[in-house]
C-alpha cells in the first residue's frame, strides 16, 4: 500500500515538476498566447458564471441598481419558485422535467444504438447501395432540421405519433452527424480483426457487439454527448408535434418563461434557475468525456 502511495506521489510530483519546467520553458510567443487566451476565456465564460450567480440570487438582489454580478447571499428560492410556478395549474414544472428526462434518455439510447449499428454496416459491409446511403447521410448533414420543419410536421402528423413520446424520440434519432462520426471511426478498425472473428465463427452481431463497439468507445462517447445535447435542449419537437401541454418538455417551458421577458423582468430568477438546470448536465457530461471527444473529432474529416 505504501509502495503504491509512494509511486503515486512520485508520479504526481514528477508531473508537477514537468509542468513547472514547461511553464518556465515558455517562450515569449507562448506567454503572449496564454495571456490572450486567458483574457478571452474570461470573456467567453462570463455569461456562464453569470447564470450560476443569477440563479442563486434572492429576490432583492435580482433587481438591484447598479446590478451586481456576484451573488451576495445565495438561496434556493429561485429553484423553489421555478417548481412552484405551475403547481396549481394542470401541468406542474416537474412534469416537464420528467418528460425531458424520459425523452432525452430514449432519444440518446436510440440514436447511439441504431446509429452505431448502421455505421458498422456502412463501414465494413460493401453491400450494394452502401455508397448511396452514405452519400445521402453526408449530404443531409447540411440540412438543419429547422429548414424542413413544415414537411416534418406533416410526416409526424400522418404517422399518428403526435402527442406521444414517439413524436419526440423518433425525429431526434434521425441525427446523421452521429452516424457519420462513428462510421469515420469504425473505418479505422482493421479488417483483419473482423475476418479473424468471422473465421472463429462469431456472428455478425457478435462481431459488432464484442469487437467493433469496444474499439470505438471514444466515438460512441462523443455521439452520446451530441445526441444528449440535441435531445436535452430541443424545443422544436414540443412546439411543433405536441399540442397537449402534459407532453411538452423543459426547453419548451423555458421558452414560455423567457418569451415575455424581453423588457419585463418578472420571473427572471426562475428563468435563470431553469437555464442552469438546462446547462449543468451538458457541462458535466462534456467534462467527463472531453478527452474522448477530441480523439473522435480527429477522424471527423470529410474527404
Amino acid at each position, binding site marked *: 500500500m505504501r509502495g503504491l502511495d509512494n509511486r503515486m506521489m512520485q508520479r504526481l510530483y514528477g508531473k508537477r515538476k514537468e509542468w513547472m519546467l514547461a511553464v518556465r520553458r515558455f517562450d515569449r510567443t507562448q506567454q503572449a498566447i496564454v495571456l490572450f487566451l486567458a483574457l478571452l476565456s474570461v470573456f467567453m*465564460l462570463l455569461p456562464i458564471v453569470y447564470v450560476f450567480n443569477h440563479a442563486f440570487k434572492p429576490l432583492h438582489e435580482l433587481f438591484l441598481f447598479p446590478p451586481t454580478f456576484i451573488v451576495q447571499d445565495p438561496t434556493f428560492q429561485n429553484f423553489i419558485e421555478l417548481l412552484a410556478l405551475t403547481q396549481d395549474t394542470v401541468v406542474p414544472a416537474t412534469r416537464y422535467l420528467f418528460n425531458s428526462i424520459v425523452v432525452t434518455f430514449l432519444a440518446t439510447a436510440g440514436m447511439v444504438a441504431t446509429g452505431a449499428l448502421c455505421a458498422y454496416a456502412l463501414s465494413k459491409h460493401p453491400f450494394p447501395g452502401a455508397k448511396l446511403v452514405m452519400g445521402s447521410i453526408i449530404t443531409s448533414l447540411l440540412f438543419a432540421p429547422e429548414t424542413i*420543419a413544415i414537411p416534418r410536421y406533416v410526416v409526424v402528423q400522418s404517422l399518428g405519433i403526435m402527442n406521444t413520446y414517439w413524436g419526440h424520440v423518433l425525429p431526434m*434519432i434521425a441525427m446523421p452527424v452521429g452516424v457519420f462520426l462513428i462510421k469515420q471511426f469504425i473505418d479505422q478498425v482493421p479488417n483483419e480483426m473482423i475476418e479473424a472473428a468471422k473465421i472463429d465463427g462469431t456472428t455478425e452481431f457478435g462481431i459488432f457487439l464484442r469487437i467493433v463497439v469496444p474499439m470505438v468507445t471514444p466515438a460512441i462517447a462523443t455521439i452520446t454527448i451530441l445526441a444528449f445535447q440535441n435531445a436535452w435542449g430541443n424545443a422544436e419537437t414540443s412546439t411543433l408535434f405536441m399540442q397537449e401541454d402534459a407532453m411538452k418538455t423543459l426547453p419548451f417551458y423555458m421558452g414560455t418563461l423567457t418569451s415575455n421577458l424581453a423588457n419585463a423582468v418578472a420571473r427572471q430568477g426562475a428563468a435563470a434557475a431553469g437555464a442552469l438546470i438546462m446547462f449543468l448536465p451538458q457541462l458535466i457530461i462534456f467534462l467527463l468525456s472531453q478527452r474522448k471527444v477530441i480523439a473522435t473529432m480527429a477522424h471527423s474529416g470529410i474527404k
Partner: protein
Amino acid sequence: MSSKAEIRPLPKTRTPGAAFGFGSKWTRSIKETARNAWKWRLSYLFIAPFYLMFLSFILIPIVAGVLLGFTYFNAIQFPTWVGWMNYQNLFSQDIIFLQHVVPNSFKFALFVGPIGYIASFLLAWLIAQLPGLLRTWFALAIYAPSLTAGIAMTVVWQVMFTGDRTGYLNSFLLKWGLIEKPVLFTQSSEFLMTIMIIVSIWSSMGIGFLAILAGILNVDKQMYEAGRIDGISSRLQEIWYITIPLMKPQMMFAAIMSIVYTLKAGAIGTQLSGSNPTPNYAGQLMINHIEDYGFIRYELGYASAISVVLLVVCYALSRFFGYLFAPKEGE
C-alpha cells in the same frame, strides 16, 4: 410543365427500341440485384432501424418540402398545385423578404459564418501551441458557450441587454457617462442585429471547432521539421503550406457545421426581441421568415418555397467549400 412541351416528342420516337433493349436487360439485372441484396440481407437489417428514421424525418421531408414549395397549402385543405408562383411572389412581390430578410441574412451570415470559422481556426491553432493541461482548459472555455446554444441562454442576454437601467450594459454605459438614458437594445432596429451577431459568434465554437483542434493536433510533428529543412521560415507559412493542407477533411467538416450553425443561429433574433416579426424587421432572417409564414400565417407552401431557397444556398456554399478543400492530386 408547359415549358417542356417542345421536348416531349423526342422521347416518344425513341421509346420502342429503347424499351425493348432495356426490358430484357432489366429483368436480368433485377433478378441479379435481388439475389445480391439477399446475400447482404443482414447489412440491410443493420442499417434499417436508423435509415428508416432518417428516411421518414429527413429525406422524405426534404423531398416533400421541395414539392410543397410548388403548392398552396394551409395545413387544413389538401395542397393545390400552383407551379412556380410561390417563387415568383418571393422574388418579385415579397417586399419584406427583398428589403429586410435578404440583406439581413446576408449581413448576419457574412459576419457569423466566415468570422466564426476563421476565429475557430485561429483559436484552435493558438490552443494547439500550448502544453497538455492548459490546452484542455482553454479548449473547454472556448467550447462551453456552444453548449448553451438554444433557448435556455436567452434569459442571460435579455437581462444583459434589458432596456432599463438594471440591464448590465445600460448600467455600465450610464456609469461611464457614455449614454444619458437607457437604450432599448433588443427592441431597437439599430442594435438588434449587432447583438445577434455578437451572441452568435460567442456561441459558435462547437463541434466544428473541436474538429479543427483535433485536426491540428493530429498533424505529424515531423512534417514541420521537414518543412523547415525545405525552407519554411515563419509560423504563417507553416500554417498555410503544412497545417491546412494536411487537415483539409476536418476543415471541410467544420465548414459544413459552420453553415448549419449559422443557419440555425438566426432564430436568436426572435428570442431576443421576444416577437416574430422582430421590431422593424431589423433582425428578420430567412429562418424567421419561414417561421412567420409557416407557423404564424399558415401559408405552408410559401414557407416551403423559402426553405428550398435556403437549402439551395446552403448546398451551393458546401459545393464551394468542397471545391476549396478537395484533395489535390498526389495528396
